[in-house]
C-alpha cells in the first residue's frame, strides 16, 4: 500500500558533493542512491531516519539532514504525530513499534531542581587536593553490626562500584555483539557493572567478565542456567522496564542469529518471546520464591536485584519487593530507553523517575526498612548533575542506558527496532555491526564515566561533602524551581529561596 505519510526529514546536498557514494554506503535505510546515467546522487527523503550517519561521514561535509518543513494544516488537537500514526496504522493494521525512551515533553524534574553549595558558613571541599569518596556498596545493610577483632564480620553479599553509575540492561540480541562487549570492557575498566539484559551471556565472555556482570532473569528465561547465574556479580530479576511497563517483549526472529540463538539457548530464527509477567510470579509471595530460588542456586553469594518500572503505586510495590528479600531495587522511569516497544505504551505508561525515587525512599524510611535494600534509579539520567540529584533524592546509584549508547555514537534516531542501526549498535547485521569498533567504543564509555565522576566530585565538594554516602537522601541539598506545591511535596524538597 502506498504510504500517505509525509517524509520526516529533508536531505540536502551541496555543490561540494563529488559523488564518492560514501553516503550511499553509509545509509542502511537506502536513502541515497547513485544514478549512473545522470552521474548524480539521488536522495529519497522518505527513507531517511535522521540518524546523521551520512552527514558525519560525508568527506566533503556536503550533506545536511533537517526536519522536513512540510506540514499538515496546524491543528492543536491533531498534531503531525497523531495524524501520521493514524495513517501508519491504517496502512499496516499493527501495533506501532518504536525504539528509544519516550520523547514526550513530560516534565523533566532534574531541570527543576537546583543544587546547593557551601558559602562562608561551612567551607566547600577542594576535590583536587582532598580525597573524595564515590565508592558505593549496593546491597542489604544490617541493622547493627557486632564486631569482633579476630574474625571477619559476615555481611550479606553486595556490589562495590567505584562510581555510582552502572550500565543498565541491554541484551545481546537487542544490541550488537560489539556494543555488548564494549559495555562489558568499559564496566570492568571503570570498576562498575554492565547488565546482560534478558539475552544471556555469550559463553566465551563468561569467565572474563563475570566479576562485572549483572545477569538478568526475565520472563522469557533466555540463556539461563545455574552456570550463567553463577558467572555474575549479581542477578537481576526483571519485572518491568520504564519504556514498556506491564508488557513483555518480542525479539523478532530475524535478529535471532546463530550466535544470539546459542546465547539465548533457543532455535535460530524463532521469535524470542518474553511474556508480560513471569508466569511463576503472580504475587509478592511468588516473587519471594524466585528471589529465594536464585539465592539458593547461587549459594547466597550474590545480591539479588529486582527491577521494576516506575508506576503509580511504586512505593507500595517497592515495600513489597524489599520484604520479599531483594537486596537491591532497580526502578526505571517513564523516560527509560528500549530497543523496541509499542509507542502507545512507551509514551503513556509509567511515572518520571525523579518522583519515584523520592516516594520510594520516603516510604522505605517510614517503614524502617530502607537499609535492607539499595536503590538503583534509571530512566532518563542524562548527565552527572542528574546522578547527583538522583542520589540526593534517595537513590544509592543510577543505571544509564541511553547515555551509554550516545557515548558509543547513537543519535537517538529511534530506529533501533528496525535492526538497521547505522552506528552498529542496535543491529545483528554483520556489516553494520563492524562499524562499531569495540576498543574505541569502550574508551568512549570509560571516558564518559571518568568525566562524570570528576564532575560529581566537584559538585559534592562544592556542597562541603566528601563522600557520596553523605549525599544519599540528603534532600536539603536540593531546591525546586518552577514546581507546584504537590510536586515539591512528592519530591520532599523546598522551593528555591526557602
Amino acid at each position: 500500500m502506498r504510504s500517505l505519510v509525509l517524509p520526516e526529514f529533508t536531505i540536502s546536498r551541496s555543490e561540494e558533493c563529488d559523488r564518492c557514494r560514501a553516503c550511499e554506503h553509509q545509509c542502511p535505510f537506502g536513502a541515497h542512491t547513485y544514478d549512473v546515467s545522470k552521474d548524480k546522487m539521488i536522495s529519497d527523503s522518505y527513507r531517511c531516519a535522521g540518524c546523521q550517519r551520512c552527514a558525519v561521514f560525508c568527506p566533503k561535509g556536503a550533506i545536511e539532514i533537517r526536519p522536513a518543513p512540510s506540514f499538515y494544516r496546524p491543528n492543536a488537537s491533531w498534531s503531525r504525530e497523531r495524524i501520521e500514526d493514524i495513517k501508519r496504522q491504517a496502512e499496516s493494521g499493527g501495533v506501532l513499534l518504536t525504539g528509544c525512551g519516550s520523547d514526550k515533553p513530560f516534565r523533566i524534574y532534574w531541570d527543576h531542581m537546583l543544587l546547593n553549595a557551601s558559602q562562608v558558613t561551612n567551607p566547600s571541599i577542594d576535590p583536587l587536593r582532598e580525597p573524595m569518596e564515590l565508592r558505593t556498596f549496593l546491597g542489604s545493610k544490617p541493622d547493627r553490626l557486632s564486631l569482633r577483632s579476630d574474625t571477619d564480620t559476615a555481611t550479606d553479599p553486595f556490589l562495590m562500584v567505584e562510581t555510582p553509575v552502572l550500565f543498565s540492561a541491554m541484551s545481546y540480541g537487542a544490541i550488537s555483539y560489539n556494543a555488548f562487549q564494549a559495555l562489558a570492557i568499559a564496566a570492568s575498566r571503570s570498576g562498575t557493572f554492565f547488565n546482560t539484559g534478558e539475552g544471556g551471556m555469550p559463553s566465551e565472555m563468561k569467565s572474563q567478565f563475570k566479576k562485572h556482570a549483572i545477569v538478568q532473569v526475565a520472563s522469557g528465561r533466555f540463556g539461563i542456567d545455574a552456570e550463567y547465574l553463577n558467572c555474575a556479580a549479581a542477578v537481576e530479576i526483571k519485572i518491568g522496564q520504564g519504556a514498556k511497563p506491564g508488557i513483555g517483549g518480542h525479539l523478532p526472529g530475524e535478529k535471532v542469529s546463530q550466535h544470539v540463538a546459542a546465547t539465548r539457548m533457543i532455535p535460530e530464527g524463532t521469535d524470542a518471546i518474553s511474556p508480560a509477567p513471569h508466569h511463576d510470579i503472580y504475587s509478592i509471595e511468588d516473587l519471594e520464591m524466585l528471589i529465594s530460588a536464585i539465592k539458593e542456586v547461587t549459594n547466597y553469594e550474590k545480591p539479588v536485584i529486582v527491577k521494576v518500572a516506575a508506576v503509580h503505586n511504586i512505593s507500595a510495590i517497592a515495600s513489597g519487593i524489599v520484604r520479599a528479600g531483594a537486596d537491591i531495587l532497580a526502578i526505571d522511569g517513564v523516560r527509560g530507553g528500549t530497543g523496541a516497544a509499542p509507542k502507545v505504551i512507551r509514551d503513556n505508561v509509567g511515572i518520571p523517575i525523579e518522583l519515584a525515587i523520592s516516594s520510594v525512599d520516603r516510604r522505605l524510611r517510614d517503614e524502617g526498612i530502607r537499609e535492607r535494600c539499595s536503590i538503583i534509579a534509571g530512566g532518563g539520567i542524562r548527565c552527572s548533575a542528574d546522578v547527583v540529584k538522583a542520589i540526593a533524592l534517595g537513590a544509592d546509584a543510577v543505571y544509564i542506558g541511553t547515555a551509554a549508547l550516545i557515548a558509543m555514537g547513537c543519535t537517538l534516531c529511534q530506529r533501533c527496532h528496525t535492526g538497521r542501526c547505522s552506528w552498529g549498535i542496535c543491529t545483528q547485521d554483520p556489516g553494520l555491526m563492524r562499524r562499531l569498533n569495540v576498543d574505541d567504543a569502550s574508551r568512549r564509555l570509560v571516558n564518559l564515566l571518568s568525566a562524570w565522576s570528576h564532575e560529581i566530585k566537584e559538585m559534592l565538594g562544592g556542597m562541603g561533602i566528601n563522600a557520596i554516602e553523605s549525599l544519599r537522601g540528603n534532600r536539603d541539598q536540593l531546591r525546586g524551581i518552577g514546581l507546584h506545591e504537590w510536586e515539591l511535596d512528592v519530591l520532599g524538597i523546598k522551593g528555591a529561596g526557602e
Partner: protein
Amino acid sequence: MEEVQLEVSYGRTSNESAIEIDASHMDTRELNSLLRDLMLSGYERAVLRNVCGQRYIGTRLYSPQRRVMTIEIHGTPGNDLGAFLFGHRIVVHGNAQDGVGNTMASGEIVVEGRSGDVTGMSMRGGRIFVKGDVGYRSALHMKEHDQKRPVIVVGGTSQDFLGEYMAGGVVILLGLYGAHTASFIGSGMHGGVIYIRGEIGEEQVNSHVLISRPDDADTEILGSQISAFIERFPDLSLDVDCILDSEWTKLSPRSSRPYGKLYASTAPD
C-alpha cells in the same frame, strides 16, 4: 572414600557414598546447605525422610565441577523442587507441589504422585516424569537449543494453559486415568511439540496450535520416552505397544513467529 565428619547428628552413612537424612526438623535453607555439603564432600546419593514443605531441593547443587547426585525424597517437598537443576536426579516417593523443575537445565525429576502448577516452566533440558497429573500452566515457555531438548512425560493429564509460549521440547500426556479435558493449550506456542493420548478438539487449543496425528518420527520419540516412563513406574505394569496403539493427538506450532504480524514499524520500509 574418606569418612566425612558432618556437623549434623541426624546424618548417618549407610554405605560409602550414600546417606540418609531425617529432614523433619530442618528448614529449607538448612536442608539445602546440608545437601550441598554432602555433594561437595563426595556423596552421590541422599535419601531424605520426612520431607515436609522444604523448597528448592536440588537447587543449591550447582558446582563448577558439575558434580551430580541422586536425591530420594520421602514426604512432600515444597515449591520449586529442582529449580535450576543442573544434572542431578531427584525421585519423589509421593506428591510434589508447584514449580517442579522450574528453569531446570539438565538432570531428571521423577514424581511418583502428582505435581502442581507450572511444572517444567522454562525448562531447557533434562526430563521430568510424573506418574499422576500436573497442574496449570505446565511446560510454559519450555525451550530447546541444539542437543538440549527437555522432555516431560505425565501419566495423567494437565490442567489448563499447557505449553503456553512453548519454544521447544517435548510434552507427553498419557491420559492413563481419564481423557484430557482442559483447554487453552499452547497460546503463543512457537516451538516444541505436545503429544496427548486421546482426542483434542479445536476448542481446547489456541489458534497458534496445529492439531495433527503423530507420524513415524513422532512415534519413535513417543516410544522411547514412554518406555523410559514405564521403566520408572514399573508398578503401573504398562505395555508400551499397547499405549502407542491408542489414538494420539499431536500439537505443534503453526509458526515459529506467532506474533510476527502484530507489530508495525513507525519507520517506512
